[in-house]
């Protein structure tokens, strides 16, 4: 096997032999179920097609979980000291990051798909309970879900990059959550909505069609996908470059 193939198989064994990441990942679908139920219970109009899209957009909102999940990939190895063994196995180091990007990206996709299936089931149940019906053919249904899954993948990959860069697990998670909850909103106001739509959370909102930020201007969905992919690529590249030469003491 090539170095990258053995790195992938080793990474797969790593993630399947501990429970923590999976418990974390399971929080995503739970958030989706709770979020949709909350939308209905707070008086969402189930006869309005826009409410259906709003409900399904929770799949993308749950990407905050795959972001933290991705951060665990690298920062968790520094936290537990297992990074030493990983670099002893792959002194080139880039194989370790490459394998993590692939495995955590895939797990992010799986989480997004599970969330999507649950979102459809829960939305259908609520809609029929309230005397309406889920319209799979409604404009935006599949577009919203596809964007939501893509956001789960993109945020997992960005997380791997953030964790490789920051390395301190608590600091990396705090920084990422602070950016999402606070910093991007402030930066967005400072630079104006024309530029703000290029920021990562704005781009992901264009992608998963949620309306968390209430931004006045968003990119088209495909452009949101490209911008988020760009951020993921930049974070991954920075992660590789900063990791290759760093001393592991």
């Amino acid at each position, binding site marked *: 096997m090539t170095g990258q193939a053995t790195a992938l198989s080793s990474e797969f064994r790593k993630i399947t032999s501990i429970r923590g990441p999976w418990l974390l990942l399971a929080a995503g679908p739970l958030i989706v179920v709770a979020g949709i139920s909350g939308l209905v219970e707070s008086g969402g109009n189930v006869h309005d097609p826009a409410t259906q899209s709003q409900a399904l957009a929770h799949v993308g909102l749950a990407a905050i979980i795959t972001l933290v999940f991705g951060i665990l990939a690298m920062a968790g190895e520094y936290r*537990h000291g297992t990074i030493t063994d990983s670099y002893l196995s792959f002194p080139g180091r880039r194989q370790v990051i490459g394998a993590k990007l692939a495995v955590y990206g895939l797990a992010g996709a799986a989480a997004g798909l599970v969330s999507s299936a649950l979102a459809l089931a829960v939305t259908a149940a609520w809609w029929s309970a309230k005397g309406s019906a889920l319209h799979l053919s409604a404009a935006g249904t599949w577009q919203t879900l596809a964007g939501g899954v893509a956001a789960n993948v993109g945020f997992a990959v960005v997380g791997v990059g953030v964790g490789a860069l920051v390395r301190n697990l608590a600091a990396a998670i705090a920084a990422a959550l602070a950016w999402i909850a606070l910093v991007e909103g402030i930066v967005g106001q400072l630079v104006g909505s024309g530029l703000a739509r290029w920021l990562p959370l704005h781009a992901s909102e264009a992608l998963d069609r949620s309306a968390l930020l209430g931004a006045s201007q968003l990119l088209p969905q495909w452009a949101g996908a490209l911008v988020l992919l760009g951020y993921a690529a930049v974070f991954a590249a920075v992660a590789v470059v900063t990791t290759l030469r760093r001393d592991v003491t």
Partner: protein
Amino acid sequence: MELEVRGLTKTFGRVTAVRDVSFTAPAGKVTGLLGPNGSGKTTTLRIALGLVRPSAGAALIGGVCYAGLARPRRAVGAVLDTAGFHPGRRARDHLRVLAAASGVSGERVDEVLGQVGLASSAERRVRGFSLGMRQRLGLAAALLGDPQLLVLDEPANGLDPAGVAWLRGLLRDLADRGRTIVVASHGLAEVSQTVDHVVILSAGRLRFAGPLAELGTGGGELESAFLKLTEAPA
């Protein structure tokens, strides 16, 4: 496959951890890397394993640097500390992760677990392991690829007297089969009975490198020689 350290220097900011250190650890021998705390032993080993970049000089394993080894886990096994485990991972899974990374079979995992005396704890999560059990698990990981060079940092740490005696026998046996063994330690008692060659560091500088016999044969003589070589300059 010998370990050759040539003119090694490492500075961390304004601190010089290792200054122009050169020595060779020959194949078929147990080499003790000795020195007080902070003398540069661990830094030297981490440079040899490609984890830390030297500021000058090089450490070569069979003539190439660690990153240049085609199959590093088959060539070199290392135990650097007793902390590098995920607490929630079972002992066997920890080794399986490394086996997958080095193309080693699943049977070999059970073989080394038996060799270090952890067969009955294979399915336990590492969070419940004592220091000595972690030391043994680290050793199992190092032995996994049946390496030519074994690098151990304070391997007796946490082992009970029976464990230390067992470790001594294991290292002697491996050396007799032509392996290169490098053991870093600040404890002299167990080392004097195990090592053939001695490298003594103090404050990042080389104080002595050569056969143990040139320092003295008994443990007491090693201690007095060690203390004399590593005392702070007046």
